[in-house]
């Protein structure tokens, strides 16, 4: 034997840890569902295997299976199975604290000592000979920050310290130590040992080479049987996770402690078993000889030797931290899944789909009833993230069946405000939504305001004005005609994308309002709010685009909005409609919005109808962009129509808009308190008079102005 390495101290390469994501997932689930604040230690199982890579050591690995079963997924995962050659079990203990402070405050020395004591006792009482896996215990302390999906942790692999330390006599690759004959015999013996389910995961063993140069692998406890036979060569072997050519791995430390304590050997020949692709690799495996001097007082059960083994983090004595927010934060996961659907759509059918426009678009929904709920859902489905809902009602018992954002819980104790309940529900559906609820009534013409309430109504008007100003698109989804008047006017004033959906019993109307009367002409294609406001200052009293501007909800009316709920029977007031109607109308309203956003002319886009030959944009990927869609469930039919703006419209004509600009709230109040004021102002009163003179029949003509074109699909 060569003695040139003389008295150098035998240095062991520390065990290293690797924690699979699955472990943290199950720990989180256990902590939440089972342990609660109970922070008593948990027995866990680590796994390791002999090194099988010439450059990378094998790590002690924790998997989901390392933890006890989570009751919620009981019996769905098989318990830790023994006999897996690549998963030799190592018993471990987990101290998971409730706070980061208690994590740092843990008595690390004490915990390590406690585990070392277990190893020491198992050596003394012989258990370590029966089940050698207990020689390599490990300890894990952790703090699972379940709010941030981050985990602070620190491993220790307790090793009993020999004092004075063992010295190395020699250490060489096994292939250089053994003759070819022995090497072959040994490889065969190892491969048998590693392929039998009885022994494959037994990490410590005895290598016996008899006088015929025949090698066998025996259990450690058989040492006493073989040591007496003089013609046998004995080596203490172990599965070595380490890849280094000049150092044995960590498990050898406690094996040496066992040998020293039980058998008091002075010189120990050992074999670090390593493999390549599942077979013994005697080139990587090492054979060495160490000299041990039994420390003072060994062999007495009551004094556990010192232990070391806290894992270093990149060479430093600090804990590790892993963040799994990307794979555990449900919000992040929901966002990426939602994005995926839209991206797929863009990829396959709509390459021009602008997801950024949609996700940054601010939508204001006036009304959070059947239409509002459904529109909000559809908007989210299209990737719209910023939604504000305005409603002053509370959720009533009859609502949840038709109003898809509410449940019975929202109706209890007098009912939640719809605006608030809808926002909660939207966040439950998609946590990344930026939804806001505003509890507010929309001031309506024909609902006169008593003087003591005047101030609050005017406050509401200003609030609505500000809301509309701060959003990009407005949906009018209230259940009365008159409640759409003020928003229509405000939208026409600020030139916002405006979409109306209105329901009858079995028919509906969905339309987009045209640009306001003071908007720049079609050619500028400017949607920029700042640019618009400068142009607003050059307000012209007549429509710049004459009759080409598309109409609003009120353009076809010859009466100003009045209180439509007065003198009505209950079924008329409650807007009883066929249940299928609202989802259809809501879906169309949102599709219309998406169409506008993707049209090169945006809000100025002309109204298109099916089969119309005078437009080129039917080649748009989203198809035509109609102005109005009217549908009837009674006929199961749907029509696209175009209606241009009316010079006498009570909501969007230039007279009304300029009057509002001049007189502001005073004008609004007058309109609310005196419905005929609007008719007088816009000339509707005159029109009515002349119409009745000619005895015209308005019954079936109110919806179809002369400019209207309709085509049935």
């Amino acid at each position, binding site marked *: 034997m060569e003695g040139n390495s003389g008295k150098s101290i035998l240095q062991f390469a520390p065990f290293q840890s*690797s924690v699979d994501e699955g472990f943290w997932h199950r720990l989180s689930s256990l902590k939440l569902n089972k342990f609660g604040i109970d922070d008593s230690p948990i027995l866990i199982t680590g796994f390791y295997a002999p090194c099988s890579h010439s*450059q990378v050591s094998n*790590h002690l*690995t924790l998997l989901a299976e390392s933890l006890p079963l989570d009751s919620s997924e009981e019996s769905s995962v098989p318990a830790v199975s023994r006999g897996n050659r690549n998963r030799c079990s190592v018993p471990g203990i987990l101290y998971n604290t409730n706070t980061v402070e208690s994590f740092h405050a843990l008595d690390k020395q004490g915990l390590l000592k406690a585990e070392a004591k277990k190893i020491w006792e198992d050596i003394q009482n012989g258990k370590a000979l029966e089940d050698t896996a207990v020689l390599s215990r490990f300890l894990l302390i952790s703090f699972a920050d379940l709010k941030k999906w981050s985990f602070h942790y620190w491993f220790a692999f307790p090793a009993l310290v020999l004092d004075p*330390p063992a010295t190395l006599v020699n250490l060489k690759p096994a292939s250089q130590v053994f003759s070819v004959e022995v090497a072959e015999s040994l490889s065969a013996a190892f491969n048998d040992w590693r392929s039998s389910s009885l022994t494959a995961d037994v990490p410590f063993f005895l290598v016996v080479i008899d006088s015929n140069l025949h090698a066998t692998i025996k259990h450690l406890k058989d040492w006493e049987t073989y040591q007496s036979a003089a013609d046998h060569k004995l080596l203490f072997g172990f599965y070595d996770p380490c890849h280094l050519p000049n150092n044995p791995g960590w498990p050898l*430390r406690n094996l040496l402690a066992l040998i020293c304590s039980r058998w008091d050997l002075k010189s120990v020949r050992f074999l670090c078993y390593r493999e390549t692709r599942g077979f013994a690799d005697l080139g990587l495996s090492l054979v060495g000889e160490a000299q041990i001097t039994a420390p003072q007082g060994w062999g007495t059960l009551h004094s556990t030797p010192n232990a070391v083994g806290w894992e270093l983090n990149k060479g430093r004595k600090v804990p590790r931290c892993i963040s799994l927010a990307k794979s555990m934060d449900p919000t992040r*996961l929901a966002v990426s899944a939602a994005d995926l659907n839209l991206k797929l759509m863009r*990829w396959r059918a709509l390459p021009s789909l602008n997801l950024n426009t949609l996700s940054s678009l601010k939508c204001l929904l006036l009304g959070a009833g059947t239409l509002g709920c459904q529109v909000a859902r559809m908007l989210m489905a299209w990737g719209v993230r910023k939604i504000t809902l305005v409603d002053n009602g509370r959720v009533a018992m009859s609502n949840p069946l038709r109003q898809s954002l509410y449940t019975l819980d929202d109706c209890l104790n007098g009912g939640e405000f719809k605006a608030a309940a809808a926002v909660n529900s939207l966040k439950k559906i998609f946590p990344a939504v930026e939804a806001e609820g505003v509890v507010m009534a929309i001031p309506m013409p024909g609902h006169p305001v008593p003087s003591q309430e005047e101030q609050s109504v005017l406050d509401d008007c200003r609030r609505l004005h500000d809301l509309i100003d701060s959003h990009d698109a407005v949906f009018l989804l209230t259940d009365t005609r008159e409640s759409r008047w003020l928003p229509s006017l405000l939208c026409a004033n600020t030139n916002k994308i405006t979409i109306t959906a209105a329901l009858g019993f079995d028919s509906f109307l969905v339309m987009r309002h045209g640009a306001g009367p003071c908007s720049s002409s079609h050619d500028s294609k400017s949607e920029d709010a700042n640019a618009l406001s400068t142009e607003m200052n050059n307000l012209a009293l007549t429509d710049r685009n004459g009759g080409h501007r598309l109409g609003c909800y009120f353009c076809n009316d010859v009466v100003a909005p009045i209180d439509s709920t007065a003198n009505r029977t209950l079924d008329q007031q409650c807007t009883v409609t066929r249940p299928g109607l609202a989802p259809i109308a809501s879906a169309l309203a949102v599709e219309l919005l998406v169409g506008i956003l993707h049209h090169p002319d945006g809000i100025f886009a002309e109204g298109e109808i099916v089969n119309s030959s005078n437009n080129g944009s039917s080649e748009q990927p989203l198809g035509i962009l109609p102005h109005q869609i009217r549908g009837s469930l009674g006929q199961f039919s749907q029509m696209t129509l175009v209606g241009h703006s009316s010079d006498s419209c009570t909501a969007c004509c230039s007279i009304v808009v300029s009057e509002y600009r001049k007189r502001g709230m005073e004008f609004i109040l007058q309109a609310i308190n005196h419905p005929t004021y609007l008719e007088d102002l816009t000339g509707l009163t005159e029109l009515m008079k002349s119409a009745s003179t000619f005895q015209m029949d308005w019954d079936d003509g109110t919806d179809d102005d002369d400019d209207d074109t309709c085509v049935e699909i």
Partner: protein
Amino acid sequence: MEVLLWDGTLSSHDFHVAARAFTENWKQFNPTLPPWIWVPSRLSEQGYLSLEKICIVGSSKEHEQKDVDEEEPEPVDNATLVETSSPQVCYYDFHILYSDSYRVPVLYFRAYCIDGQPLAWDEIEKVLPACSAKVLLESKWTFITQEEHPHLNRPWYKLHPCGTSEWMKLLFLGDESLAKKGVAFEQYLVSWLSVVGQVVGLRIPFEMLNHHKSCN
């Protein structure tokens, strides 16, 4: 089945057959790589193919000597080897699952550092060979998303199977030796992985492809 009439998909049973043929074949031609293993599902009769812990060793990196408040949990022990550098190692796991809705195989994969920290997609991209980046950028079918692994219930990366049946049909049609003999599902996975593997830097030896052609 004639290739011309075939839609590029395979049944769950065919997938199972193809998987067995593939694992055998892989073992034969890639003795130096870990084997693909069939993992039976605990929920259904289906299972998936798994190739785990493909190790990528980067250059060795010196530990930074940062000034941090180190704790002193234990006294210095001179029998402990202290390494001053460690190799940058990351692992790849690949699973091939069968998609019932698309009726094609789907590649799920993940990558993680040696201590278990998962790598995000942008980090994986950096490690991928240059040719993979090119494929990802240029081809329409290479759509990578993070989705829940149907068997593990944890998010994995996935190559979306939208286009798979189409290009599989083209692949079989374009190859005379394959086209002549009708659709041989035993070849499906080798052909499929020879395309899909490019995206994630997983190469199929040419012999494996050729072997299939010659013995069919």
